[in-house]
């Protein structure tokens, strides 16, 4: 689908991309990763001709892209940037429909596209379409950024560290969503990141770059088993150092993998403040605690919307659907519970039944990676 043939780019004397060649298949989720300044963004921007290489050729579906009009080419390729890049002078609806309008789709069709896309990320049209970007939370803004890239149904989407500026919980949610979207809409995605966790949880294929060259191009599993170069190993072990613990995998407990940043609210909170909190922090559920700080259950935004009454306490809406584990339970047990559970996380409790943290699917993926490279230094 996308083919790089000996692409080189330099600014003055400085070579930025050195003879890069690779091929991406239709429907593949490819993640470009590597240290800062290694040329990831430059590589990405050569695909939609925001940057013209000095040497080499790029083909999309067999066609040399330099033979196409760059403006028209870009309308067939979705583009999401790190700084979000929503146009502040346009509403959510106008932002999403930028490319369809450039392509002169009829008005009604543009509106339908916006409605369908907002549905895809659970942001009701009536509530959101006419807001300006500044009225949205960071996570919601980047969702709109992603939807804007999808609007004209381009077969290819380029994403440059799209979730880099978001807090970890929001990032998890968006990663999950983009993965779902890709599966559903069968897009070819080229995604830039410098976060190995993100690469591992998203990629079909990881391209590791350093100093303008491709060091390794492999599936996540293969890269885990066979890091192609010392720099890849060190890149991986850096992630591990950021982790909580370097013990052997057999001694790992639930507490070693939990996130301690948990949004907790007392059961006496009112529905309205909970909704506000959820939307400002971009989560769709909250952990609810008793007066003595012990764990009571969780409350979801759907539940509040369905049954909540403004000004009422949330205690009645709390459910115990989410599975809990003790912090000293084996990590493996916690993971098994998470995998068999409906929800996207499990709650970790202290011995005195207060909330210690939670384990999400991403923290689990990270843990598995750490276990594999535990001995790499």
């Amino acid at each position, binding site marked *: 689908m996308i083919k790089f043939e000996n692409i080189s780019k330099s600014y003055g004397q400085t070579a930025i991309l050195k003879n890069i060649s690779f091929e991406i298949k239709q429907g593949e989720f490819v993640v470009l990763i590597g240290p800062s300044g290694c040329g990831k963004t430059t590589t990405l921007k050569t695909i939609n001709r*925001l940057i013209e290489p000095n040497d080499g050729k790029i083909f999309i579906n067999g066609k040399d892209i330099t033979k196409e009009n760059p*403006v*028209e*080419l870009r309308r067939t390729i979705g583009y999401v940037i790190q700084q979000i890049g929503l*146009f502040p*002078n346009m509403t959510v609806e106008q932002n999403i429909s930028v490319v369809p309008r450039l392509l002169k789709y009829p008005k009604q069709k543009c509106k339908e596209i916006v409605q369908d896309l907002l549905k895809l990320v659970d942001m009701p049209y009536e509530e959101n379409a006419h807001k300006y970007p500044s009225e949205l939370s960071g996570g919601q803004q980047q969702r709109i950024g992603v939807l804007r890239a999808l609007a004209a149904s381009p077969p290819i989407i380029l994403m440059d560290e799209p979730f880099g500026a978001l807090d970890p919980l929001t990032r998890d949610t968006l990663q999950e969503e983009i993965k779902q979207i890709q599966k559903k809409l069968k897009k070819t995605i080229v995604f830039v990141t410098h976060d190995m966790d993100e690469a591992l949880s998203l990629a079909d294929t990881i391209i590791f770059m350093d100093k303008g060259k491709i060091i390794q191009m492999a599936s996540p599993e293969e890269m885990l088993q066979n890091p192609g170069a010392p720099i890849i190993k060190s890149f991986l072990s850096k992630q591990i150092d950021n982790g909580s613990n370097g013990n052997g995998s057999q001694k790992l407990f639930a507490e070693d993998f939990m996130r301690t940043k948990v949004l907790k609210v007392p059961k006496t909170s009112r529905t309205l403040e909970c909704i506000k909190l959820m939307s400002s922090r971009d989560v769709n559920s909250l952990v609810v605690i008793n007066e003595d700080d012990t764990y009571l259950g969780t409350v979801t935004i759907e539940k509040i919307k369905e049954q909540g009454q403004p000004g009422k306490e949330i205690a009645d809406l709390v459910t115990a659907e989410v599975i809990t584990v003790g912090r000293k339970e084996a990590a493996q047990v916690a993971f098994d519970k998470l995998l068999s559970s409906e929800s996207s996380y499990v709650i970790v409790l202290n011995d005195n039944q207060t909330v210690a943290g939670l384990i999400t699917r991403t923290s689990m993926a990270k843990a598995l990676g750490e276990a594999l490279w535990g001995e790499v230094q």
Partner: protein
Amino acid sequence: MSGALLQGILEHMAIVSIAILISTVVGVIFGVISYWVRFLDSVILGISEILQTIPSLALLALLMIIFGLGNITIIIGLVLYALLPIVRNTYTGLKAVSPHLKDAARGMGMSKMQRLFKIEIPLSFPLIFSGIKIALVNSLSVAVMGVLIGANGLGTIIYRGIQSRNMETILMGAIPVVVMALAFDFGMSKIEKRLIKRAK
């Protein structure tokens, strides 16, 4: 007498409005050209700056030699005089649009013109508007000098007052100029604040 005053105010307003309309169009166009064509920016900004440093009386005298007496000449003078704040603010505003947004607009497949009209001008509009405000407020007072080159407006009343040493007549011409300048400055500053707030 009040008929003459009303007429003076209306003429004054008409002259200034026409001049500001023209210099807004010309100024924004020159601002865009300086933004687009790298080496032209210092040339265009330099010329607008020189125009503004010429004392207004001297500029009007020069124009009178070329264009003769009358309203046209004062309008041309006002246009030249009002150019600098509008060109400069347009240029500065366009330059200041975040490079990420320009990148995003290019990446979405907008042509140069589409980027200008859909993104860059709307986002620099608060600054362009502020340039227009400065130009308008200045022009209201400079237009008084139109009387010296045979133009209409409140200048004629003031001039008549000076010649007949009639303080009352002088004030009758001068006060509306001051009031209009203050009113426009106040009103447009309010709008400007709202524009800036909305842009955030």
